[in-house]
């Protein structure tokens, strides 16, 4: 059920973000969602793409540092208090959230979560009423 996410190291200077985007574009890879974390000196670009293995190979071939991590996709009820309800499930499961960002496709309010222990999280979150979205379904939603 876990989703493979690519994390890229970016120096904080003009043009750095365009480099991986251009490489992925030339390789014909569709970026499904992304998030950028930054400090004064460097940033980490996180991407979810259609074919992560191909994307990783294309980026690495051009010397971009890529780290593959696993994240969880959660359908959040699209109503007031929806996210609080999901987070309550995380809390009950005693899981810390490292970061999260939205998955912007389809009719759902989907969020991607990076947690301390993705394997344990996957096993126990469902028990606490957190609706996880399997990778296959997530990708299917992006089909055009």
């Amino acid at each position, binding site marked *: 059920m876990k989703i493979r996410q690519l*994390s890229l*190291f*970016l120096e904080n200077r003009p043009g750095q973000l365009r480099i991986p985007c251009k490489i992925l574009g030339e390789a014909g890879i569709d970026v499904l969602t992304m998030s950028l974390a930054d400090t004064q000196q460097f940033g*980490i670009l996180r991407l979810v793409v259609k074919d992560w293995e191909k994307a990783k190979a294309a980026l690495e071939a051009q*010397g971009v540092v890529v*780290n593959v991590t696993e994240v969880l996709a959660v359908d959040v009820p699209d109503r007031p208090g929806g996210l609080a309800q999901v987070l309550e499930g995380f809390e009950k499961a005693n899981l810390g959230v*490292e970061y999260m960002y939205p998955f912007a496709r389809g009719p759902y309010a989907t969020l991607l979560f990076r947690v301390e222990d993705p394997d344990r999280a996957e096993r126990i979150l469902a028990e606490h009423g957190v609706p996880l979205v399997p990778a296959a379904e997530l990708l299917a939603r992006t089909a055009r």
Partner: protein
Amino acid sequence: MKLLFENRLFEPAEALPRDTLRALQAERLAATVDRVLKVPLYRDALRSGGVSSRSIRSVDDLRRLPFTAKEDLRQHYPLGLLAVPRAEVARIHGSSGTTGRPTFVAYTRRDLDTWASLVARFLTAGGLMPEHTVHVAFGYGLFTGGFGLHYGIEKVGAAVVPAAGGNTPRQVQLIQDLGAQVLVCTPSYALHIGEVARAQGLSPEEITLRFGHFGAEPWTEELRDEIERTLGIMAFNNYGLSEIIGPGVSGECLHRNGMHVAEDHFLVECVDPETLEPLKDGEVGELVFTTLTKEAMPLLRYRTRDLASLDRSPCPCGRTGARMSRVRGRSDDMLIVRGVNVFPSQIEEALLRAEGTAPHYLIEVSRPGALDEAVVKVEVRPGDFRDEMRQMVELRDRIDREIHAVTGIRMTVELVAPNTLERSTGKAKRVLDHRKLSG
């Protein structure tokens, strides 16, 4: 310029006729060769070369003596090059900066007296009079700057304010309240004091200082102009290194056309750093010093790694000691950042400690305002890249701490992407010095 003063000698030895000086040097060199026979390093080298004090007939015989390098001091850590019994040692100093592997130098009571006189020479050449008050903003400690200048000022008979480093606004207040006419510190700190004084609303005319003696780091004519404008003073350059004695090896007179070497106490050579062959006057090469009167730790042909040129033509001031130019650079890759010696090998050591292995790095030094700024760019190895920001920031902070622990100074650590730092075919380019030191 607020000050015009008369040219005065501290002692007549500064103006010995050159032939008298050469005869004195030969005599003192032979005595030095006798003294270093008590040092195992030199005894072995001299015996295998068949050299004794009897073979020294003129200063030209210097060529028969072995060179000494910083590494020799390290290998004989802590005081293996002592030529006197330990009981005769009156003071021990350390080479400035490097906290990783310090090197120690020792002085007898008489060495300390000589040192004070040599500092008094350049201070007098630069206008210091017994009635003056001198503000010393050098660090006091193992570093030879603070104590070296302190006792030299006392030797002249002037008053010392041993302010030491730090808290610049307070330094400005001390200078103004106590009415110091003379400032002693590194040139970059002098400019910083000037900028802080200006920020406090003090004009150069209001500042009590009239002249300054600056050293311990290479600087330029441009920086001199800026210091003089900002503080409203006349600025003098002086040179020294702890291995030879500390400050006092050479210093400028009021003509400021090079620093007069105290040649009655040190033989100076300028050599090609590759071939070690002597260079002509005016050619830039590595300066090599042989101590002529040092008792505790005499050194033969010590390679300073400082690049400069020599000028033996007569100076209008009457001093006969050869004049050395400003230090134009280094023949190794040592950097002097805010007065502290930094070697790229120390950065390597810090990276090793922080991470386990030494990745690619580049040290960039600039002087955007008054003070040096050093940035260490470190390539993140693919294996060290983590998705979590917290871990990346921790990595950077860890490198930051280790660099401070090893070098003793703060540098800005910047993580850069792998394979982005320039790879040269031969020796790796580790240092980019944007400071202009050629002026």
